[in-house]
């Protein structure tokens, strides 16, 4: 039996490239590239490192999104993943994290029917567009799997049964041992993701697209309507008024002006 690793990945707009139209206060998304979410890239790298080292490891990347998210899956396959699976259906559009985890759960169950038992689920800690960090733990909950989030160091035993990780904390880390199957969320400190390679780009690729019917998901549990959270309003933050540029003939003059300014604002 192959050791099946599922990597959960998301295609996201590169938030570094998003700008606000100062006239309308709206997001300028035109020309913003879509990328493989950063932390997910670290999750994929972890999976590929296991595959490099051990025989009979199969890495499958699963994602949910519009059809163009296939591009991101091609990138994952070109880096060395064995297959990409995209859950794509209008019925799952607008899902919040709870509904998304239901769809991914159904996708993974379908995967298990087709390709066998899943031994390890890896995800990025969070996606840069939503920053929720919720879908990973929620998938783990659906499968009743143990989870470790914020993984910054990873080791797996040669029998692939025991995982030892460092879980990042604000003021250090925890050394945690957990048995497979389990779900881990990865952060950028974990590794340096590889680039696409020729073998991956020109090799056998398998990108599978499944719709809601394929994954036999309960339509009462996915999509906008089923989501427990809804967007009430969305808006851009009020621009903070531009302050004063301090000028002077010497740096000392400027520093003096700053001190007067800070004193005037009662902050010192």
């Amino acid at each position, binding site marked *: 039996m192959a050791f099946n690793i599922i990597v959960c990945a998301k295609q996201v707009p590169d938030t570094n490239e998003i700008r606000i139209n100062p006239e309308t206060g709206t*997001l300028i998304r035109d020309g913003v590239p879509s990328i493989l979410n950063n932390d997910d890239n670290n999750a994929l790298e972890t999976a590929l490192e296991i595959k490099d080292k051990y025989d009979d490891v199969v890495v499958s990347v699963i994602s949910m999104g519009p059809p163009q998210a296939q591009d991101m899956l091609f990138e994952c396959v070109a880096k060395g993943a064995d297959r990409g699976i995209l859950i794509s259906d209008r019925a799952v559009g607008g899902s919040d994290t*709870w509904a998304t985890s239901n769809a991914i759960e159904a996708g993974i169950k379908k995967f298990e029917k087709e390709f066998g038992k899943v031994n390890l689920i890896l995800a990025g800690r969070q996606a840069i567009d939503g920053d929720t960090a919720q879908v990973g733990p929620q998938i783990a909950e659906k499968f009743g799997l143990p989870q470790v989030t914020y993984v910054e160091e990873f080791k797996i035993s040669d029998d692939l049964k025991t995982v030892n990780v460092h879980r990042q904390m604000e003021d250090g880390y925890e050394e945690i041992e957990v048995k497979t199957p389990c779900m881990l969320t990865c952060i950028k400190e974990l590794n340096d993701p590889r680039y696409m390679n020729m073998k991956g780009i020109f090799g056998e690729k398998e990108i599978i697209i499944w719709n809601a019917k394929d994954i036999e998901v309960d339509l009462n549990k996915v999509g906008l309507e089923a989501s427990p959270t809804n967007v009430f309003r*969305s808006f851009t933050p009020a621009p903070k008024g531009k302050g004063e540029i301090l000028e002077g003939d010497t740096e000392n003059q400027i520093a*003096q002006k700053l*001190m007067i300014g800070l004193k005037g604002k009662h902050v010192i």
Partner: protein
Amino acid sequence: MAIKIINDKCKGCTICTKNCPFDALTMEGKLAVCDEAKCTNCNACVAKCPFEAIEAAPEQEEVDLSAYKHIWVFAEQREGKLMNVALELIGEGRKLAKDISEDTEVCAVLIGDGIDHLAQECFEYGAEKVYMIQDPLLKNYTTDAYTKVMKQAIDEYKPEIVLYGATHIGRDFAPRIAARCNTGLTADCTHLDVNIAKYIEFAKKETTLDTSTLDPNSSDTGIKQTRPAFGGNLMATIICPRTRPQMSTVRPGVMQKREPEKGATGEIVTIKPEIKAEDIHITIKNIVKSAKELVSLTDADIICSGGRGLGDASGFELIEKFAKKVGGVVGSSRACVDAGWIDHSHQVGQTGTTVKPKIYFACGISGAIQHLAGMQTSDIIVAINKDADAPIFEVADFGIVGDLYKVIPEIMKEWDNAEALFDAANK
């Protein structure tokens, strides 16, 4: 439960069988029949039937929202010490509770072992009730054990709202509970309201939102959770109208603690946790504290942050001297952390720490949107940068276009003269 075919109305057109996403509908002679084992109550067939011969599956049992009351704060403790964010959330929870109704209480939930002494601190910071859940198995946080006992408590006492700090623990814990309770969770909130009039007030002051469609007299007291998305470019207010409890994680440092009231007391409810060693599937082998000095960016009154404009790692030597002089803490942009110039614990921004000191010195920081998201609510922002077009100047109260290596030493020199300079300038 499944959809129901009304046999009298069914004309045997087979449209429903073709439209069922789950192959639950088949034809038996001239009548459609539903295989209840396959039907998922998606009701897709109902709209497709031209003869109104299909009755929708009964709605899933609605959650009785009125059965849920009071606001809970997960009072996160580590090694017997409460996290600051827990006290901030008790303060915020108290405000929200009274906005819901006079008899809505804010309750702290303490989970751990040997933590009796923490109840008093929760009361002093505004908690009206404490739920105490203790067991040796709960000494350190584990997802499995904490989720199990929290779910037990939620099922028993049915809180209307549960707030968690968006710490490394809170962000591990809350999603797991939300999934187990099948309820909504909103991550990393920076503002909370229950009252529409107060939400309008907030929106007018701090956002570009058109509030004309909101009714200030609305009796709706569901939580309105405002959070940044797209790296802080966009704000969204999220509601959780149909399920309970409503849950949020809140960024440390954004809510206000109350002035502690010495000697305050309240009711302590002890919950006996149903927890066994077999419930815990991970082993914490060691907890390692970073040898580096703990950076408390969230509590700092003054932060001196360095960015790529420092040129190289040695630039932080100047920033450290500067911070020491002004009684501040050293912060950093993500670029410097990524370049390995400084530890990530110093990072300010969307993926680092959110800060709002009295004075934020941004030295050689261009002002990427992620960085701004983490510091733009500082009282006063001072930006020092060579590039006059750097976005940081858009949010700075005081901007200095110049070489930080020349400017900062002068600020250090004049720091103690502020009063005299101010008086001289205002004569």
